């Protein structure tokens, strides 16, 4: 035995261990983003079943290569450092073998490719499956489920257009106002194939809900080639932006909430309305919208006033910002800020990293929301500086220098904007934990 043999042994054992590690890799997690377990969509499931085959092919090929190496080491290594002059192994005749190992891998790959094509077609085809919804004032529409997904630094916007809009032919800037606009959270009906029109307002992002399907980039100036998702069971599915998009790329998350049809209908109905304010405040808003200058009375009106003066230049809150045209494009590079009308119906905010509702208590998460309003960068990295000397636009939510009172008022106002969606009355089930800290 030469002196390095023990370490060789160790190495071999180690490599065997390594192989085992890969084989059992799949068992490792039950994490929300796992691409291989807890899959709820047919696309993700087909990918996973193919992946399983692929991984087995790779295990076998690697095992083969490793086995030959180890066996060669076992059989043919020599002791000592120098050769005897007569030790000259002959070369094996090669042409025959070379043909074998050109053709065999090629055949394996042909097989792989055939299945790849099948799966590829499955992922890239779409079927017509209009569902009928009651929208607005009791009007019934046939909705071909299609959602516009817009990425921007560093949050996702989802637009639902129930009317007759040709989504694919327009840039995001020229699309008409959506019927429903949400941020960070896409709500879909269970068991229905949803077509996604994915694009971006600034840089490239990538939309990815691993439990439902693979990802698709959101490219500014482009509408993605069609992509789709489908959830076969109700639930909350996590996602993460996966194309590097700058400072807070890691904090750009999203969720898909799949609801049974009835609940989805309820959600749609609720989303089509503005926020419910007390009649006095509503009147106060109407007065302001008409150009009045009444001073606010009470917390709610004070909050409305604050929102209209401090927030409304970027954010929309239907029922509060009436009469104000928000112009985020003048202040933000991305040209968009989340629509806050139904903030309360969401499970997360700040790009999907903070819970709106405390997962333990089910209460409105006043602390972190307050913290966010006081100093957004303390929760999510932002550029706090304007773009340049001659371009004053910002990226991300600025620190507005709100007073403690204003923050409290605003938190109260946002709490009024709704309760999280429920499945069979069980909202807790839909409040999944997320977020830093």
């Amino acid at each position, binding site marked *: 035995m030469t002196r390095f043999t023990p370490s060789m042994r160790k190495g071999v054992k180690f490599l065997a261990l390594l192989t085992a590690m890969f084989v059992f890799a799949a068992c490792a997690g039950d994490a929300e983003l796992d691409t291989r377990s807890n899959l709820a969509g047919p696309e993700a499931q087909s990918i996973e079943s193919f992946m399983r085959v692929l991984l087995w092919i790779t295990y076998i090929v690697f095992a083969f290569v490793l086995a030959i190496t180890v066996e060669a080491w076992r059989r043919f290594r020599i002791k000592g450092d120098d050769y005897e002059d007569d030790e000259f192994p002959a070369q094996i005749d090669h042409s025959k073998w070379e043909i074998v190992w050109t053709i065999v891998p090629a055949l394996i790959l042909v097989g792989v490719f055939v299945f790849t094509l099948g799966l590829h077609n499955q992922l890239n085809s779409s079927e017509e499956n209009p569902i009928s919804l009651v929208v607005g004032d009791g009007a019934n529409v046939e909705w071909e489920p299609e959602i516009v997904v817009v990425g921007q630094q560093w949050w996702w916007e989802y637009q639902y257009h129930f009317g007759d809009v040709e989504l*694919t032919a*327009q*840039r995001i800037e020229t699309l008409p106002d959506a019927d429903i606009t949400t941020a960070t959270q896409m709500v879909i009906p269970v068991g229905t194939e949803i077509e996604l029109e994915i694009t971006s307002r600034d840089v490239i992002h990538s939309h990815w809900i691993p439990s439902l399907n693979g990802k698709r980039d959101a490219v500014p*100036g*482009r509408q*993605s*080639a069609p992509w789709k998702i489908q959830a076969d069971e109700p639930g909350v599915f996590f996602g993460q932006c996966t194309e590097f998009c700058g400072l807070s790329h890691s904090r750009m998350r999203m969720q898909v909430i799949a609801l049974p049809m009835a609940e989805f209908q309820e959600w749609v109905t609720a989303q089509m309305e503005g926020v419910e304010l007390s009649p006095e405040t509503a009147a106060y808003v109407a007065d302001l919208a008409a150009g009045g200058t009444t001073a606010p009375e009470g917390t709610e009106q004070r909050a409305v006033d604050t929102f209209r003066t401090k927030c409304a230049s970027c954010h929309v809150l239907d029922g509060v910002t009436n009469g104000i045209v928000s112009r985020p494009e003048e202040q933000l590079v991305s040209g968009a800020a989340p629509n806050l009308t139904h903030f309360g119906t969401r499970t997360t905010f700040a790009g999907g990293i903070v819970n709106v509702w405390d997962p333990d208590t089910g209460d409105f998460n006043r602390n972190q929301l307050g913290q966010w309003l006081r100093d957004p960068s303390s929760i999510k990295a932002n550029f706090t500086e304007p773009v340049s000397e001659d371009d004053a636009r910002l990226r991300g939510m600025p620190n507005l220098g709100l007073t403690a009172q204003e923050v409290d008022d605003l938190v109260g106002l946002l709490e009024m904007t709704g309760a999280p969606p429920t499945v069979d009355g069980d909202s807790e089930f839909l409040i999944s934990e997320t977020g830093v800290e």
Partner: protein
Amino acid sequence: MSVTESPETHHDHDAHDDHPSDRSYVMIAIGLAILTAVEVLLFVIEDQIADTLGVGSVKIALILLMIVKFWIVGAYFMHLKFDNLILTKLFISGLVLAVAVYFIMLSAFEFNFWNDGLLDQGLPGGIS
């Protein structure tokens, strides 16, 4: 570059005497000038031809003329025709690679070589 080439093979060693004379260079240049004139002419009467034969024919003609000019300059002025074949191979490999790669790239943009570029047809993003 061919694998079989041995260093000792020097192809066209005796071909040197076939180098064109100054006179033939001038003739070649005149030919090139004529081809250029034809190109411009094609451009001028493009509309007429397009009406009868379609725009595609103008394009094909122009591209063919371009290739011919390219080839003439390369073969005669740049001596490829008379030099060692390896030079032609080296140059052609770059040329062909460039054409192939960029052709594929533009195709992936759904760039339509026979019609417009894509950007005026609405949003990019599609099937190819």
